């Protein structure tokens, strides 16, 4: 039975542009061997159908909207091209797995922090803000056993108060340097942050 292989390839044509391009350029070579001739014919036809690109646009719009809704402050730090490049690379490494995007947003924060650590990415305040939003998401993560999320600690090198306030309005301020920590916890279902400075 090759229906699972056919569905897998059709879904990949939508979500994976490298795979789609491979099918377009090398025709059938990029497709699995266990497809029927009719399934191959269908996949090849879809790969060059303009409707595939529209479907991909809808897929991307849905995924992007959900991801960025979880990370409004991180999003505010980026210019359009850099953000598109980083998300594109992140998605290349991580296929979509769920309708629920909190885990993907957490993974994107991890990805950004790794890129900074590797010296591949330099965006002002990003290390602090990605760590802050990651911590906030950890606190919001569903815990079916009802357990309390662990305390979150985020280190800042700039004063977080003007920084977070400005980013919430989509602005990037010139925040003064200040080494401090935000301690985050979930109190009665609400995120509570406390500041501790050196």
């Amino acid at each position: 039975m090759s229906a699972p292989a056919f569905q897998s390839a059709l879904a990949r044509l939508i979500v994976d542009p490298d795979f789609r391009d491979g099918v377009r350029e090398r025709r059938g070579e990029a497709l699995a061997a266990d497809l029927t001739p009719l399934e191959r014919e269908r996949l090849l036809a879809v790969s060059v159908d303009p409707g595939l690109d529209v479907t991909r646009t809808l897929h991307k719009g849905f995924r992007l909207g959900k991801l960025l809704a979880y990370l409004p402050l991180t999003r505010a730090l980026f210019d359009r091209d850099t953000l598109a490049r980083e998300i594109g690379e992140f998605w290349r490494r991580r296929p979509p797995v769920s309708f629920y995007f909190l885990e993907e947003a957490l993974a994107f924060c991890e990805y950004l922090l790794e890129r900074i650590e590797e010296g591949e990415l330099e965006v002002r305040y990003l290390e602090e803000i990605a760590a802050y939003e990651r911590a906030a998401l950890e606190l919001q993560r569903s815990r079916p056993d009802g357990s309390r999320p662990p305390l979150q600690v985020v280190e800042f090198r700039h004063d977080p108060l003007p920084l977070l306030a400005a980013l919430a309005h989509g602005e990037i301020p010139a925040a003064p340097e200040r080494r401090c920590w935000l301690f985050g916890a979930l109190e009665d279902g609400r995120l509570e942050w406390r500041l501790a400075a050196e």
Partner: protein
Amino acid sequence: MRETAIPRLGVGLAYQPALRPFIEQKRDSFDYLEVVPDILWTDLGAGRTPRYVDDEEGLSFLRRMAAGRPIIPHGIGLSIGTAHRFNRDQLGQIEKWFSWFDFPWHSDHLAYNLAEHGADEINAGVTIPLPRDRETLECLAPRVAEVQSRLAVPFLLENNVYFFDMPGQEMTDAEFLNALCEETGCGLLLDLHNIYCNSRNHGADPFRLLDEIDLSRVVELHVAGGMEHEGFYLDAHSGPLPEEVWALLDYALPRCPNLGGVTFELLGSWYETVGSEGLETELRGLRALWNRHQPAPAPARMEAVA
């Protein structure tokens, strides 16, 4: 065979969190709320126990709204057409909702979004069309039967919108939908805006399609607005109904003898653009059309293959 009464509910509104103020303040403008239940739980993934975490705040809102207003679930996560496995864990969630809201029918999409990806799965986040072939029907039939065996109310599948078509399919849209209903006993949630989209993008006559579909299987209609994008017309749920969809509704309503309701879908992010008055105007127009064509108060009955 068994028969199930279909109440004639009237005009429904598709729930979106952004519509809450409207839903609370304008409760007389609609007769039922249709809710995508998947947005009111979090699925932690197969193999997790418990797998689903309910959104208690969202459910609390719905319970308040459910007083005097039916809540109809319209799922997006069943992925009933996925070939490699059936996401039956989701049925447990729908059963739970049935115990809470006692709905007269429920629905999901005639499509798939989950597919194998190596040892894992991908979720495309969009409803991917299924080939209109006998093999697809053979995959769907036992799954529809399982849904029907677990919930004693009609189960509907919604006709899909698609932007690409596949060569060599064995059936037309109408033949496929008719065979699906005939062979599985499921009902149809006929989305007229999807029909309009497909007709615009693929050049078919939507009225002819309505003539070819067995409309006695239609329990619910969907209507919405959309938009143009790069030469395609999208099912974007982005505003008022286009004139052509009003015309399709006017044509379909008197021809659906077992209809329970017609639901207006508006994406929450477009609510600000449409506005409270604009939304109320659409619902008022739908109710006027409903009252003109569906005046009979007697409950419809739908036959389902047991």
